[in-house]
């Protein structure tokens, strides 16, 4: 699943994952609000969630509703999935916050202009290590 408000970047991510033959993008959302709307409308089941959620940190329509908080809260509730968090912001703070919750299956990627296909796939695979 991809949660990204930049449509072009979202399409790029989908093409990278789909063409890797290691991933299949099952759904894309343009905001964390749209993602959570669909999750709860779908009965908030573990089965609805994908193994990996790739999310932009600030994809919320509401600035007080960031992706990190929503995804960490779902994990706090016992849902199992890996997170690959992306942002143009320095993500050291996100890693520190996630570490307080154990930080398993959590990776970050900086949205720098030098970001490439290999880096994205590597980070996605790393985030999935040991997921059960």
């Amino acid at each position, binding site marked *: 699943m991809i949660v990204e408000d930049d449509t072009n970047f979202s399409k790029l991510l989908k093409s990278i994952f789909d063409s890797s033959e290691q991933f299949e993008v099952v759904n894309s959302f343009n905001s964390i609000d*749209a993602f959570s*709307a669909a999750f709860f409308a779908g009965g908030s089941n573990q089965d609805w969630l994908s193994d990996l959620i790739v999310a932009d940190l600030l994809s919320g329509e509401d600035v007080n509703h960031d992706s990190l908080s929503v995804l960490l809260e779902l994990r706090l509730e016992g849902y199992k999935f890996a997170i690959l968090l992306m942002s143009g912001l320095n993500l050291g703070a996100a890693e520190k916050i996630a570490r307080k919750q154990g930080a398993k299956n959590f990776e970050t990627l900086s949205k720098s202009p030098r970001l490439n296909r290999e880096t994205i796939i590597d980070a996605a695979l790393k985030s999935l290590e040991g997921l059960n």
Partner: protein
Amino acid sequence: MIPIASGFTPGATFSERVFWGVIEGVVLAAITGLGLKAMQRRRNTRTQELAMRALDAESVARQKVAEYLHGTVQPRLHLISREIANLNTSEALVVSTRLDEVTDELIREVSHALHPPELFVSLEFALEALLANRAELILDKRLTANSPVGLVDLNVASEDKKYAQSELRLEVSSLLRWAIYSVVRELVANAEKKTDVKKIIVSVLVIDNSIDVKVSDDGHSLPSKMTRGLGHLTVEKVTADFGGSFRIKNLPIGVEARCVFPYEPKTSLEAIKRRRSEIDKKHGASVV
């Protein structure tokens, strides 16, 4: 009226006139004093309201410009950089790399000064980013991602709710986040100026109806006669604008600066519920 009438009653003795004159003066002074105090209170309240509105407007303007720089200008410059890089010459790659560096450096610097984009995420995220490798952060649990917003509870019946009100994450307005961030930034920078400081501790705690921000260090004490620098004056102004207080004192070892901001605790869940109908309309579903 009686004193005046009595004071000028024909035939009143001199001592009677003096007595009533004094009484009249005291009564008039009391009435005028009470009136002035009430007027002063109203004026102070109004001034406080106007100050908050001005701060709010300023904050919105800062946020919008910062968002524009971060969300529009920076990506566009990156796009131009990609187009230059696609020319596939060694010179083009050098120019592209340099453009990226300058863009990131300048945009980050300006947008951070206006409104640190980390504050759009959360107070916890912004403070962690600000204090990384600089100070230890002790943040009230109810202001961290370790406290649930209660998203699942939002979608179940009240008897099935998992979390008590007191366990839920607290919401801090963007304006107050900015104020807390600003005072911490100033106070930590001030503490870092002391060459003998080895450790800085920042604590942000919710205590009753206030947010208590403390920055303490283990450096040398303050002189008994201290001239406040620009940093302390900024902190004093920011806290005063929010109706709060700022104190600085020596500890047995080191110095503690403390700001107290008035704060009405409300959970993020309450805030989400208030916004929910608006978002529901957009998505046609229950959104949390």
